[in-house]
């Protein structure tokens, strides 16, 4: 069986369009069918991908805009293989949720279309092998979310969406300018090419790399979000519909992390080495700040939001250790956190359903009574969030710390404080909502069949990843070693130069 990436890429959008014209309730079913088909297709991809060979596979490469050298180039590699599957899983869960939990939502057709567009854009950003194409898909991701928030969002959606837009637009513009400059500067004899492979062959001069790298880094850090660029997060998270938020927090942040590995490190290795410490400081600050906020705020959503900041901090730390183990751990963490965070967002909705609609943990309490299965699910997910040894998150953080340990000991030591804080905020969320005396508005009930339909598959994936982390680690090994090669060379070259200069002065 041959696999065409274009089919995977456009399938969600196609089903979204069909759902748009389909009548009322059918739209959600069509949307779900589309998500399931993409899921099936990515699973086939997982099975079919040649792990032994590694590298780019199923390459689609068509010259799209000749005069600009922009290619419609898609491929699957060890870097994005598992992330593609993760994306499909989370979108499927979201589609199931919107089918079973919001059956009477507004304009289901339009909703399905926008979700389809979002999925296509995310898949495109993951698979793009052309810088311009990546930038297009990266920016395209924002469009459906704008409408999803504006139409279906919470009470404060206008200012939330404005903030989200302003922030990400700044990043996107810088990235766009950086991408264009890269293409122009790297052009051969006036023949520009935006293919990543071509760009990586002719690295830019060190000074040009510097500010372009910073532009890209800023765009990615805003998208994650990382401290201190997270100003859009509280408003944005509070006002998204649950099914949208699950996708947003699970997947979009990972696109940004993936961008570092796929774009920033291979194309701008010298700059990456130069700004390594800066980005690591941002990562560690995100870990500490996110954790500190997560055990201070009282909204269950925001606890998860700030915990995401901390977790993404770990991912960035792992990537910028420039160590294969760190990057492998970061990719594992990206997959694991996507599933865990997505599942926990649904758990927040389930908590709210049991506490009179409030998502404030101060209104909850005693929900475990009468809901042992729900409590067990929530507890396992909380453990997965706090990097309990035995979960994939632990293995990921172990490897991230290991990678960081080898290169930057101090950062690893400081970051490990974040692990302790994670235990505290994750348990605080669990204990205040599930334990203690029953809250005034709380009416607890057992996990319903519909809820189980969404949460149990995600839980099983979390457990499977915990037992078999190699599933993500083994393809990642090939991908990250490719992604890090340029940077590692630049690093050793700079070390060598520094050593030589040192000897010269002596």
């Amino acid at each position, binding site marked *: 069986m041959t696999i065409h990436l274009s089919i995977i890429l456009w399938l969600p959008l196609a089903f979204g369009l069909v759902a748009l014209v389909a009548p009322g309730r059918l739209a959600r079913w069509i949307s779900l069918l589309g998500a399931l088909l993409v899921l099936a297709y990515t699973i086939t991809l997982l099975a079919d991908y040649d792990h032994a060979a590694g590298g780019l596979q199923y390459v689609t490469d068509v010259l799209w805009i000749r005069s600009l050298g922009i290619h419609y180039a898609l491929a699957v590699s060890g870097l994005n293989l598992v992330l593609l599957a993760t994306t499909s899983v989370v979108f499927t869960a979201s589609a199931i949720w919107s089918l079973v939990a919001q059956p009477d939502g507004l304009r289901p057709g339009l909703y399905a279309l926008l979700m389809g567009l979002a999925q296509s854009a995310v898949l495109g950003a993951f698979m793009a092998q052309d810088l311009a194409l990546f930038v297009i898909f990266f920016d395209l991701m924002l469009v459906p979310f704008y409408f999803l928030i504006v139409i279906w969002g919470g009470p404060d959606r206008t200012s939330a969406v404005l903030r989200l837009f302003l922030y990400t637009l700044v990043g996107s513009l810088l990235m766009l300018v950086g991408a264009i400059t890269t293409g122009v500067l790297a052009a051969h004899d006036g023949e520009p090419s935006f293919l990543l492979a071509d760009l990586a062959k002719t690295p830019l001069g060190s000074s040009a790399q510097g500010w372009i790298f910073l532009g890209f880094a800023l765009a990615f850090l805003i998208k994650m979000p990382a401290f*201190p660029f997270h100003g859009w997060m509280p408003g944005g998270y509070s006002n998204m519909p649950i099914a949208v938020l699950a996708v947003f927090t699970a997947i979009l942040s990972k696109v940004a992390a993936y961008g570092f590995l796929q774009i920033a490190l291979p194309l701008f290795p010298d700059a990456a080495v130069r700004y390594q410490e800066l980005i690591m400081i941002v990562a560690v600050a995100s870990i500490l700040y996110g954790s500190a906020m997560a055990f201070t705020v009282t909204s269950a959503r925001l606890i998860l939001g700030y915990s995401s900041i901390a977790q993404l901090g770990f991912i960035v730390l792992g990537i910028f250790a420039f160590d294969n183990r760190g990057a492998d751990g970061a990719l594992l963490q990206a997959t694991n956190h996507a599933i865990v965070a997505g599942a926990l967002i649904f758990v927040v909705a389930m908590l709210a359903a049991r506490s009179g609609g409030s998502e404030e943990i101060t209104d909850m309490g005693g929900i475990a009574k009468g809901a042992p299965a729900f409590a067990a699910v929530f507890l396992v997910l909380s453990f997965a969030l706090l990097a309990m*040894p035995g979960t994939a998150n632990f293995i990921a953080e172990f490897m991230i710390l290991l990678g960081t340990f080898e290169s930057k000991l101090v950062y690893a030591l400081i970051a*490990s404080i974040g692990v302790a804080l994670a235990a505290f905020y994750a348990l605080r969320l669990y204990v205040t909502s599930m334990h203690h005396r029953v809250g005034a508005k709380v009416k607890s009930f057992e996990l319903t069949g519909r809820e189980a339909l969404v949460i149990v598959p995600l839980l099983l994936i979390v457990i499977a990843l915990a037992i078999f982390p190699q599933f993500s680690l083994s393809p990642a090994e090939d991908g990250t070693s490719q992604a890090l090669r340029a940077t590692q060379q630049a690093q050793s070259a700079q070390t060598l130069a520094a050593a030589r200069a040192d000897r010269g002065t002596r």
Partner: protein
Amino acid sequence: MSLPLSAWLVLAFPLAGTLTIALLGKKLSPRAAGTIGTAAIGIAFIFAVITLVKLQQLPVDQRVVTSSLADLINVAGLKVQLGIYVDPLSTFMILIVAGVSTLIHLYSAGYMQTDQGYVRYFAYLNFFVFSMLLLVLAGNLVLLIVGWAFVGAASYMLISYWYRRDTAAAAGIKAFVINVIGDISLVLGTLFIFKTMGVVDYTQLFAGVHSAFAKDEPELVIGMLLILVGAFAKSAQIPFHTWLPDAMEGPTPVSALIHAATMVTAGVYLIGRLHTLFEWAPTAAAVGAIVGALTLLIAGSIGLVMTDLKRVIAYSTMSQIGYMIMGVSAAAYVGGFFHLMTHAFFKALLFMAAGSIISAMAGNQSLNNMSGFRKAMPFTFACFLAGGFALSAFPLFSGFFSKDTLLFEVGARGGWYMALYVAGYIGAAFTVLYTWRMIFRAFWGKPCEQATVLEQTGHSFHYPEHTNPHTGNEDDPSTQEVEDTEVGFPGAVHKIAEQTWQMRAAMIPLAVLAVIAGVVQLPFGLTNVLSDFLQPTFADTIVAYHPKNPGLETFGLILSSVIVFVFLTAAYIVWVRRPGSSSAIQARLQPLHTLFANKWYFDDLNSALIVRPVVWIGRWAKDSFERIVVYGAFIGGTSGLVKAGSAAVRAIQNGLLRSYVAVVVGGLSVVLLYFLVRGL
């Protein structure tokens, strides 16, 4: 059956028990859950015995068997296997863990019969035992950390078992967070060692450490110190011990499990397991020994003044674990693990007996309210006495031999170790005092109301309302918070050993063992069962293994006996013959009493140094930083810029048609003028 298979089955049965009980949940009758849970651990114990037999059949120098199911991680030079490591030490541990746990399960099946959450309880309990067995059998440091953390998680679940109690929920979090700090420290220590050696597997670690590091190299010492912190957190050594007394929030059998078989002994096992590395980093080992000695003194002193029966036993555990940590850190391996074994027996027994008394007191745990249970509860009394004699190291009881072996081995090293030796004997005096204070106050004297009711009616006493003994004044239930009994708690019927066969069946073997277990390792080489058995594990020790020094040994035995007799008599005088003299002593030593009663202020210290600053930072981040910098500077700055720009544009759009025209005409004129001027 091969040896690895039987060892794997030791792990498999508790896990299967956990999953069966958890997945069947409410479909199981409480009786079935108890049976499945007990049977799972019991079968694990049988396989542990089979493992022991198989291991003993191997030649002495081949008594290390490893087995791996699959690779957990195998990437970029990091290889971690899902493997086990079976040698005399781990076999010794699984025998104790599985054996004592089986009895505790059996006891629980009786004790918790009327609790609402009975099924959930056994799922947790089985998971706890599984975690501990995993920790013990793990074949590498990463898997050890997994088991280590599972133990922490299971203890959290069981401590918070009565989750509607605010105090129980808080105690659970405290235990978990301190344990996580230990886990992280353990992880960092592992990373330090991995950084140099590149392996996490025990076999490779033990074989390679001498060539990878110089003796006492700073890198290794830091790594081992971090690992020690992990051991301290799990084994409740100062300053990481504050969770242990609070852990008394859990049901009493859980306390027995935490204190006797699982959890707190993990630190001792870890040091013994990694003795090759610790011996190569003597500085770290010395720190471990000193902390153990300090803990045994401080905990013993606190135990003297606590009035909550369970807390006295809890501090006694801390103190005894202090002995073991001191012992194994000072290379007193036989003594350390001997004491671990006897302590598991008599401490489990003491907790079970205490549980029986607390039931008879209808949940009230204060020693101030207990007295005269001697006649009302003869069986419990007998068991408590057996445990008490063993704990206080009364001659010929098991604790006597184990504690003396431990202290003798420490003392035999001479030098500064003699200070530890002395500390151990001072601690022994404390032990005698707090043990017999507890026994004399609970069983002697004029029977209290509860004891009278039990003695006369044959039914245990009930308060009209169930209250939380950890709130209000512990002596006066009317000041305490009324319990939310819907969720559980030993319900209307309190189970005592005299009336529940499961509890008796669990306590009898332990009582026998507490009395006679000393025979496995008698002084002067009379019996050497234990030291011969453990010898293969410690074959690579660079310190003398179980040294011989009959003079010191004799001196120790005599000193120990004298201490027991003198302080037992003193306790008898103070608490039985002249009741009231204890308050006179307390009045005379008021500052000391205050210090002990406030637990040497460790809780306050933790709160001031760690908890409060962290909370403060969090609050500062939320209230100030997030508001001023993130919202003010970033969001305010960006949106301010946009707002200013849009205000300028908006000013032109005034809706006045004629001003629009004027702008157009003006603009056009300027353009025309430009061309005119340029044309000229």
